[in-house]
């Protein structure tokens, strides 16, 4: 966008005429990092996410300090005479839930689930998306037709519905298995839109002169694919993957909210919201704690993703296709 670049020129300080400085070459990574550092919001998000990761890693410590394992109920101390959960206080720092479990400890374990599922499924989806997209765009012909159709059909599937169906019919009871299934389901429904974008990119790259030059020099298809095409996709893949993480986190939370994501007793922010929804009226912290954590995490990942995009491609404005 020409308009944007006029409005926002690269803010380079005027070079002093003398003494002549040696020009030091900077790697693309250094350039990107220099631009990223100027984006205050993205830096703050990075800090928030690091804190969130520390909060998640400390989950067993929280359980130790409070003396409240995440799956244990404390009917005597956590529920009042009327059977209502107690609010944030000395014993239960962020309150207790309707069964008398510690919300703080559960939220910390929930953070682990959100971060692990969000990051792993985004990585898996991007791996799959790049593989399919590059193959489809580069090879062309029948391969392209088949792969493109597969992506089309995946996109036409009602994803939430099929995800619920998958999770229900597999009748999984173990936490690890449900975690794996959740990650696979999310990756499966995210790879197609990813692959479509990569496919388009590869198809336009294929027309570029430098590919033609490589070909005329006698480079093999494999070499062109790995040496010329893939490195040119790195920026886009990084941006897309980082923006896929918050989407995946929301996906997991939604599945767990409906009771078909990560299985109980392992807490997830989504299942905490689902379980507590009957008692929000009296116990607001059951809504506020998981909702705020969830929002903070997705917002930070979105801001970080925007920051990464601006850093990697200074010409792009902050508009990219949604989802």
């Amino acid at each position, binding site marked *: *966008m*020409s*308009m*944007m670049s006029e*409005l*926002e020129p690269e803010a380079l300080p005027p070079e002093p005429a003398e003494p002549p400085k040696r020009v030091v070459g900077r790697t693309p990574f250094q350039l990107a990092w220099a631009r990223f550092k100027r984006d205050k919001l993205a830096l703050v998000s990075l800090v928030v996410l690091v804190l969130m990761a520390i909060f998640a890693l400390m989950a067993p410590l929280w359980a130790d300090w409070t003396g409240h394992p995440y799956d244990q109920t404390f009917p005597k101390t956590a529920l009042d005479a009327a059977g209502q959960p107690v609010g944030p206080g000395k014993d239960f720092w962020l309150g207790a839930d309707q069964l008398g479990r510690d919300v703080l400890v559960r939220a910390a374990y929930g953070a682990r689930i959100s971060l692990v599922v969000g990051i792993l499924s985004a990585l898996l989806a991007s791996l799959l998306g790049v593989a399919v997209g590059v193959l489809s765009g580069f090879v062309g012909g029948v391969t392209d037709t088949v792969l493109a159709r597969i992506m*089309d*059909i995946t996109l*036409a*599937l*009602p*994803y*939430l*519905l*099929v995800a*619920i*169906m*998958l999770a*229900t*019919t*597999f*009748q999984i009871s173990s936490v690890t298995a449900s975690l794996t299934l959740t990650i696979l389901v999310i990756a499966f429904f995210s790879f197609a839109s990813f692959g479509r974008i990569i496919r388009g990119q590869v198809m336009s790259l294929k027309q570029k002169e430098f590919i033609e030059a490589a070909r005329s020099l006698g480079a093999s298809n494999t070499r062109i694919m790995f040496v010329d095409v893939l490195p040119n996709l790195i920026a886009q893949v990084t941006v897309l993957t980082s923006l896929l993480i*918050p989407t995946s986190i*929301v996906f997991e*939370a*939604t599945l767990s*909210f*409906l009771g078909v994501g990560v299985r109980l007793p392992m807490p997830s922010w*989504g299942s905490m*919201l689902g379980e507590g*929804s009957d008692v*929000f*009226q009296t116990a*607001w912290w059951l*809504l506020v704690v998981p*909702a705020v954590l*969830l*929002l903070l995490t*997705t*917002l930070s*990942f*979105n*801001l970080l993703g*925007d920051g990464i995009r601006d850093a990697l491609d200074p010409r792009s*404005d*902050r*508009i990219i296709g*949604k*989802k």
Partner: protein
Amino acid sequence: MLRFVIRRLLYSILVLWLVATLVFVFLNVSPVPVERVIGGPRATTDMLEQIRANLGLDQPVIVQYGKFLGRLLRGDLGDSYINGTSVASLISDRLPTTLWLVFGAGVLWFLGGVATGVYSATRARGLGDRAVTVFVLIGLSTPPFVMALVLLFVFSTKLGEAGFTFFEAGPPLQEHFLQRMILPWIALAFLMVAAYTRLTRGSMLDVLGEDYIRTARAKGLPERRVVYRHGLRSALTPVVTQFGIDLGALIGSTIVTEKVFGLQGVGQLVYQSINLGDTPVIIGVTLLVTFAVVIANLVVDVGYSVLDPRVRLS
């Protein structure tokens, strides 16, 4: 054009068949034991066998699949395993609620998104634009079910205690229609408003950078006319395209909103059916939703070529 539409329709049928088969195979590989659901916990093995036989579940899978396809070709979606009602009538009972939900929210998010997007684009990099950007990011980061829970908590629970009624629960839909629908609409539209603001803003900025906009300004046209008549008109094309696709896709994503607000739409129907193992209803709704997506895409593609002569259908 006609050839294009026919080709796409044939392709749509292929997609529907694939989806139906996929779901059928899938529900057969790992079924929820529906006979247990019907028979109850005390049913004997004989009774369970009898129930399976009545539903035709004792036959080989390939025979079941053949019968299923035969029925489908005649446009018959079959009967519910649980209560024997035809799937078509179950769906048509629930569909109006879901359609009202989706279209109401659609109007809200389209108008909201376009208005905010234009506002933001005409003040690019200004204070208003920055505020909108923040709003967009918050909107895109808020899961719809969290929005629904928060709205329900604030407007129904808290303000309800204070004597305001923003939300009426319970059937029938016709009574207190607005009170019942307004919160679900907002919950469903919130994220989409953010997405459409972003889309409209980007599209507007693209268009406002074009030469013919400069020409219009050079002719001395008033800014309003430049923005709305010349700019918005062509900036809307991608937005309308996306709107068509999203309307179709959203019919399958109302499960959460319907659940939180207790609306008895198609989403709730399929959610309950999945838990009960009611295969015919699950397949019926899946097909309906996929059909909506496929048709929405077709309409958008054809509409696009009518609106924009530069797009050729091939």
